């Protein structure tokens, strides 16, 4: 037997180390993904399933989806939801992170309390939202009426536009602490010496923020936005519980739509196709993120 060089030995060791992880990925992620891709290219549904009379139909399901007004609405909903959630949760989360980086009394406890929203299971948040935005018994209408900001009870979850706004608010409630948390850890990484030096050099608050804090925080900001996009884009439980995607699909997103197709309509292949669209969009974002991380490392 040939003696292995040190390098070969090391490489083998390396493979051995990644093997469990790789096997896990293949079994847990690879197989369902492949299964889903195959399913999305067939016409498995309630009529063809039991008799195994389904066939390969190529991209027909995808074509049907993109010719379906409901699907296009849902695709739009998903992007609208994600966009506004990112805008609000990032801005407010960033402001809060900056605010709490000032070390004032009670900064710690208050920050901790804000984090409670993040630790709450999404299903609880969704139920809270459902009750708070309820037309006749919700606390939001009650407060608005009492303060005189409204003269009649608002429909919130009963009209398409306001229902979307309501789910965005509830998602931000969770997203803000998440953004704050990641940005705070980024902020603590910025040495106070640099800011102090800039101050000595005559830079004002505004200049210090834009020229020092933001550039140094760039990796954290990008990570927060990317992760935020991924988490928000695949939202499911919030809508599923708070609005069931309604009224009239106005808060349906790709996740709930794919579930509805597969589990309520028994259109398994169509459901898979919708899920694949969701996957592909996130895959592209994920690649972008990985590339960015690699670029940052260099």
């Amino acid at each position: 037997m040939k003696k292995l060089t040190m390098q070969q030995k090391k490489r083998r060791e390396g493979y051995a180390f990644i093997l469990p992880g790789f096997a896990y990925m293949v079994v847990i992620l690879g197989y369902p993904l492949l299964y889903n891709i195959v399913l999305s290219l067939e016409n498995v549904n309630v009529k063809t399933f039991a008799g195994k009379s389904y066939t390969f139909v190529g991209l027909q399901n995808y074509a049907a989806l993109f010719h379906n007004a409901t699907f296009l609405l849902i695709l739009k909903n998903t992007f609208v939801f994600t966009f506004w959630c990112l805008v609000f949760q990032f801005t407010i989360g960033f402001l809060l992170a900056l605010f709490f980086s000032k070390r004032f009394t009670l900064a710690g406890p208050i920050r901790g309390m804000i984090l409670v929203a993040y630790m709450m299971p999404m299903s609880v948040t969704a139920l809270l939202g459902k009750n708070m935005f309820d037309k006749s018994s919700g606390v939001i209408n009650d407060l608005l009426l009492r303060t005189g900001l409204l003269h009649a009870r608002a429909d919130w979850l009963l009209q398409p536009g306001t229902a979307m706004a309501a789910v965005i608010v509830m998602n931000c409630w969770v997203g803000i602490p998440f953004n704050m948390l990641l940005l705070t850890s980024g902020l603590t990484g910025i040495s106070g010496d640099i800011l102090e030096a800039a101050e000595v050099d005559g830079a004002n608050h505004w200049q210090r923020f834009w020229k020092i804090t933001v550039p140094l925080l760039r990796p954290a900001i990008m990570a927060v936005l990317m992760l935020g996009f991924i988490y928000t884009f695949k939202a499911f439980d919030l809508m599923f519980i708070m609005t069931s995607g309604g009224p009239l699909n106005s808060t349906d997103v790709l996740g709930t739509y794919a579930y509805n197709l597969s589990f309520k309509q028994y259109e398994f292949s169509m459901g898979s196709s919708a899920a694949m669209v969701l996957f592909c969009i996130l895959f592209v974002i994920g690649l972008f993120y990985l590339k960015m991380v690699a670029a940052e490392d260099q």
Partner: protein
Amino acid sequence: MKRKQMTALLASGVIAASLLAGCGAAAPAQEGAETAPAPAETAEETPEAGTETAEVSADDIGEPNGGAQVTLWHYFEGEADALNKFVKDYNESQNEIYIVPTFVSREELMKQYTIGAVSGDLPDIGMVDSPDMASYISLGVFADIDSYLQEWGELDNFYEGPLSSCRGSDGHLYGLPNNSNCLALLCNMDMLKEAGIDKAPDTWEEFEAACAATSDPESGVYGFAMCAVSNEEGTFQFIPWLYGAGASIADADSPEAVRAFSFLAELEKNGYMSNEVVGWGQGDALNAWAAGKAAMMEAGTWMIAQNLDNADSIKNNVTWEYEFVPMPSDNGNRATVIGGENFGVCSSSEHVEACAKFLMTMETAQNNADWCELAGKLPVRGDAVGLKDFWTADERYKVFNDSMNFAVARGPHAQWPTISEALWTAEQAAILGQADAETAAAQAAAVIDPILAETPLPSGN
């Protein structure tokens, strides 16, 4: 640091334990059918609302009788004890099979059937909401037990509506109906009388007038409450209006159908009905009625026993005189809708014949009458009704029992969920004013017509 580690360890221990507990609840379904282990000892007496599954103990269902263990999944809550009692008697009466019932919430049960169609992890006997059965038959969830049932020779005694929901597209029977219900108009007579109306409405015209007289949207009081929620319940409550207008699902964009959509839309627009109905399940509509927020509501048979007579929150609230009347008629058309549950034997069961035998025992005339009296529901066979005066002596049940004469079945159709979604979507669009009645009806027909062109509904609906 040490303390933190301890906390983390504890936390992960708790999580792991809860995961295991989760597995335990589902375990009976996967256990080998040949052995008959004693059911879990630590089970609760009755399933609590909100729990996904609940197990039973040997006290409830009898000691193992030496027969093969078979599982039965159901979503009876109030009737769970009675079901267990029935199963106990059956387990003690024979030793071919030993039945272990498990409560699984309805939503969870439906998901399990869908997943089970792929994985084969199904119970031996399963309960199913009647309009869903056709889809599951098509998916291969239920076994064809037609030959056993034909041999039984009792099928002629069953009402066709409920029985038809057990039929596959091949005309064979895949189960038996267990109970029926339908919808009627529940009126708060005190409110009507206060508004100067002495008699519960009988036609759409009278109904609309009664709504106008009793509504006061400013103070949150409406003439009418119903359920128009975005699921099967919404469609269930819409069908009496659709068919009452003289339309049917097969012509969802006919002028008659448009009239049904516009009638409900007008109720909302005129302030006779809250737009919250699009978010209300049938229980929510009943709560609104019981809180005095609605003078009339579209109510189901089961609400008498489950709510009006026995639920404290409702019973104590309803201090007024109330009356059930048939759903109002329009131009001489009157309609209501059939609801109810079926039981089937799952195709993966190794004891199909023995399980079918159990279903037949469960649905003898006497047993069906006993069961439906206890559950406050309507029998599924004509000869059961005559065995007791329960459905004729109580005026309330009599209204429902008589209404079965003009009750419409939903489907059966393998693509019923898609048809149903088209109906409640159109109804919501009309009620919320997102589309006018013509557009809403046309949108529903655009989905339904191609489906029915391929596979029509059985004649009669």
